[in-house]
């Protein structure tokens, strides 16, 4: 099989200039851009956790909470897949710098927050989810690989699944390596079947050996080019906001996903 169909029941989105999916829709309808905010509110976290949580966690929890709220599902019922190309680059920079100068002074909290599944951990703890949670990465193909992982989980388990993809802006030498200069994330609640909650259905077709289709478009200097999740997902987010369209995502170096919106009847 090389075709899947999956149904979207909730959408979350955050960047410093876009507070949620509704803000993206408004922007496409011509509304003036809102003032940028520095920090995702992440209201699903208890206040003390919100103060302590690293930025990668705040971003992931914010968009996860938005998507789940839109879907109407209980957050604790949803298995979840958290994707990120680089994890928490601020912690990576801190840890590598500290290890190079005074390794014995490494912060234990920052170390346990450095695991790639920190967002999944904070989220499942905050909302009391005992279902499977995963943390994945696939370089520039993280969005497509994450969509495939979440869709296959939803279809084999026959239950709705939360997909969260996000990367924060990097800093220091490691930030220069990642080239990530802005924060962006989106989340989808995916269901294996069409239900009254279905917002839109996604037809997904896998095309292997797709070197040509996956060649990046020439850079135009747009903000979304400076974040690996936004660079992949921006066309899909625009299609979701418009309610129509098709786009191609990389799911691996040469594996393309053609994702077409099929409007709910």
């Amino acid at each position, binding site marked *: *099989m090389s075709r*899947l169909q999956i149904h979207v029941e909730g959408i979350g989105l955050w960047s410093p200039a876009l507070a949620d999916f509704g803000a993206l829709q408004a922007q496409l309808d011509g509304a003036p851009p809102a003032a940028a905010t520095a920090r995702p509110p992440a209201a699903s976290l208890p206040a003390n956790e919100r103060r302590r949580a690293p930025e990668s966690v705040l971003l992931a929890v914010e968009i996860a909470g938005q998507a789940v709220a839109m879907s109407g599902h209980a957050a604790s019922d949803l298995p979840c897949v958290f994707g*990120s*190309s680089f*994890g928490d680059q601020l912690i*990576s920079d801190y*840890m*590598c710098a500290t*290890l*190079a100068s005074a*390794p*014995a002074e*490494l*912060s*234990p909290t920052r*170390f*346990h927050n*450095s*695991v*790639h*599944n*920190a967002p*999944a*951990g*904070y989220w*499942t*703890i905050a909302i009391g989810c*005992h*279902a*499977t*949670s*995963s*943390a*994945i*990465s*696939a*370089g520039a*193909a993280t969005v497509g*690989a994450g969509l*495939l*992982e979440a869709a*296959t*989980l939803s*279809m*084999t*388990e026959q239950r709705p699944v939360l997909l969260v993809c996000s990367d924060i802006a990097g800093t220091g*030498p*490691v930030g*220069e*390596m*990642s*080239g990530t200069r802005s924060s962006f994330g989106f989340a989808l609640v995916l269901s294996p079947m069409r239900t009254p909650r279905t917002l839109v259905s996604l037809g997904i077709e*896998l095309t*292997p*050996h797709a070197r040509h289709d996956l060649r990046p478009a020439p850079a135009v200097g747009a903000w979304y080019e400076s974040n690996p999740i936004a660079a992949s997902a921006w066309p899909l987010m625009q299609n979701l906001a418009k309610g129509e369209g098709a786009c191609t995502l990389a*799911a*691996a*170096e*040469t*594996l393309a996903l053609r994702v077409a919106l099929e409007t709910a009847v």
Partner: protein
Amino acid sequence: MSGPIQPLAVSAYTVTSALGQGLESHLAALSSSHGGLRENDFSSAPLACWIGRVEGVEDAALPAAHAAWESRNNRLAWLGLQQDGFLERALDARQRYGAARVALVLGTSTASIGATEEGYRHLDSDGRMPAELRRPPIHAPHSLAGFVAEALGLEGPCLTVSTACSSSAKVFASAERLIRLGLADAAVVGGVDTLCDSVLFGFNALELVSPQPCRPFDQARCGISIGEAAGFALLERVDSAPGAPRLLGYGESSDAHHMSTPHPEGLGAELALRDALARAGLHAEQVDYINLHGTASQKNDEVEAALIARAFPVTTRASSTKGFTGHTLGAAGILEAAIALLAIRHNLVPGNLGCTHPDEACGPQLALQSEQRVVNVALSNSFGFGGNNACLAFGRAPA
């Protein structure tokens, strides 16, 4: 609760750890209770602890065609791929099914962060990554899978799972789902983690590192010993390899309790265990051997010992092999899956090296010494930070 799955054949597998390169050295060490830990001679600054270091990693240079992926972690991956003829078996699967029909799902927690650390120790005069290490793909979590996909020439679904110490157990679940839906005909799964300052000084900061070789489940245990490993397995449908051992089931769950401490009643661990048994269509009485997570941390061992004692009969044998290898973190899932498969192949229950006076929470299932007995069904537990739990079930092919 999940329903049973169709088992998959584990048609090839291999592992490399402090016990040596490949399965034979692991069998020999486990049979003779000969551990692989040594005093820390790795970290960039002194740290009094014991480690499970793999010999020969530094000499396993990558082929020139893949030199852009050079890092110690990828060297260990390359060394590991060449053991037990695994590289040839993976290339044969690519030939039989086509490159786009073989998925690659690998677990890691460290990826090549050791190379990033090295860069920060040798920043250039502008405070930037030194020229030799200015290779962006190695400074990302996908470094391992990116390298292995290129080295094996695979073009199917390709994923890094990074859920701390359950990473390379969960890869079996992701691969099973891809094969079940027909998105792949086979999958290379596995994982690689390498020693680095991040994990040595990180676990040290959490006061979880033992100054002595770790002693899982012993009353006098005082923390973990960190190790490194590389392991791989090839999964196919059973009709392609009817005589091969089988992945019978898997279970996954979240504790929803604490970032770095397990749930006090082992709630998540038990959910993963029950999930694995349900998918495998097994009762606890049918389990011959369990390779335990057994890190030698105070809390994990107490909670896991109580779970085994209440969930299994006396006839089930159980042990942690981390006294042999150290805790190989993101590679622990595949290392201990390989040990469970070795237990089935050789009817060997490995002993729980390092334990002489078991914690009072331990039941009679704990095997302190290695035992020769029939092992038809073996489980492997892997639990990670963030309360991320996985349990795998393997079985012998029916006669």
